[in-house]
């Protein structure tokens, strides 16, 4: 048996031997966590609107996002956010909270290397790919939208 065959057989065996994450549990946890974060966001929005009814929906939405971001940064700084994320998985990082955590955690971690080469250059170490993806996909959608608009 040559090495390639051996490896193929071994990888198949490893795949079957490795424990799988229970998909139902993962989905359920993500649903609970994601829903909680979204409900919190809605709640902040409703509270703001009840105090300042003149604000338009976009501004209210921006404010509730800001509150979630600040809250996440505090939770990250106090070392609680990673525990929530361990439970909630994608439910925790798909809302804006995940983005805030990825930047805040890098800023904390790389502070020791100084403000410029530490915080400054490594803050987007995890969030960078998300930004690049966001921009790239918006560009694609924009081009498609533009082409559709021609007809």
């Amino acid at each position, binding site marked *: 048996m040559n090495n390639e065959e051996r490896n193929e057989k071994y990888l198949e065996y490893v795949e079957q031997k490795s*424990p799988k*994450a229970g998909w139902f549990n993962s989905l359920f946890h993500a649903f609970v966590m994601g829903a909680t974060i979204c409900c919190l966001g809605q709640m902040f929005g409703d509270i703001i609107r009840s105090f300042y009814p003149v604000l338009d929906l976009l501004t209210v939405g921006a404010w509730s996002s800001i509150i979630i971001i600040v809250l996440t940064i505090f939770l990250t700084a106090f070392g609680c956010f990673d525990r929530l994320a361990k439970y909630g998985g994608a439910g925790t990082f798909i809302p804006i909270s995940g983005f805030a955590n990825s930047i805040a955690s890098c800023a904390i971690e790389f502070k020791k290397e100084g403000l410029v080469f530490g915080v400054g250059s490594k803050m987007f*170490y995890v969030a960078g790919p998300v930004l690049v993806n966001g921009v790239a996909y918006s560009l694609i959608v924009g081009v498609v939208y533009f082409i559709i608009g021609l007809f």
Partner: protein
Amino acid sequence: MKKLGSQTYSFESDISIISGVSLVGGKEGAGPLKKYFDFVEEDDKMGQKTFEKGERLMFLKTISSAIKKSKVEKDNIDLYLGGDLMNQLVSSNYTASELNIPFVGLYNACATMAESLIVGSIFLDSKGMKNIVCATGSHFSTAERQYRYPLEFGNQRQSYAQWTVTGVGATVVSTEKTSNIKIKMATIGKVTDYGVSDIANMGAAMAPAAMETLVAFFTDTNTTQKDYDLIATGDLGKLGSDIFKDLMMEKGYDIETNYVDCGHMIFNIDQDTLQGGSGAGCSASVFNSYILSKLRSGELKKVLLISTGALMSTTTNQQGDSIPCIAHLVLVEGEN
């Protein structure tokens, strides 16, 4: 030194392990082996500003204490051998600059403990040196930053992942002084690659390396698992050790009864470390605590320590390369 078979060596000098000291972090200290460790440090920064500085101080404390325990004057220690997981072996390098003992840095990832014992024994067997301190360790927080994500970054680990051990182990080996614990033989491992590229599944990547080294040792010495009281792998974790047992079974060796894995035994199941411990400090701290104390008391007589190491870097991993692994074996005997 005599060569047996293809890759095993038997030492002709009387090489004794005259002291062994282990230091671990709070999480390891709360595990099932807590009464065996010499030091449990609740503060994993050791009062320093960064985890990296803390790791160095852990090395310094462990090594100084091992030398003190050996009752050999520091000036009579001929060599400090060892390594860690940090890039450029910084933790060992900085420790060596504090210790002022001639230093040789070694890197075989988590197999460095067995590697340093082997290299140390060979130096001693050459008769030029008399006392050598071998030390290896790792730190959860520094390894996490170098190999994975920031500590506070919220993500889920794979169900087959492991947890890097915060711990250091230091052993003083000598031909000048004697003790009842001897290093008799060693098998130097070959780098093996069975194609596993998932960095979270270290156990599966390293298990074949451990199997190849152990099979080579059995073949070279014409012995089987029945001739030894304990076979201990370094840090395969639960999944990795299950795979290792399967692989050994395939080769005709049933090691179920006298086999343990240091990574699997260092944490309790409720400590949320998934498949158990990993890291260079894993076999180093377990060998210098649990295993040495059992050898000292005579409960164990012949122990095979097989430290296992995954030799990738973050760059090769991101470029999609599979993980080359190594396992080194030492035969340690207690004479009572």
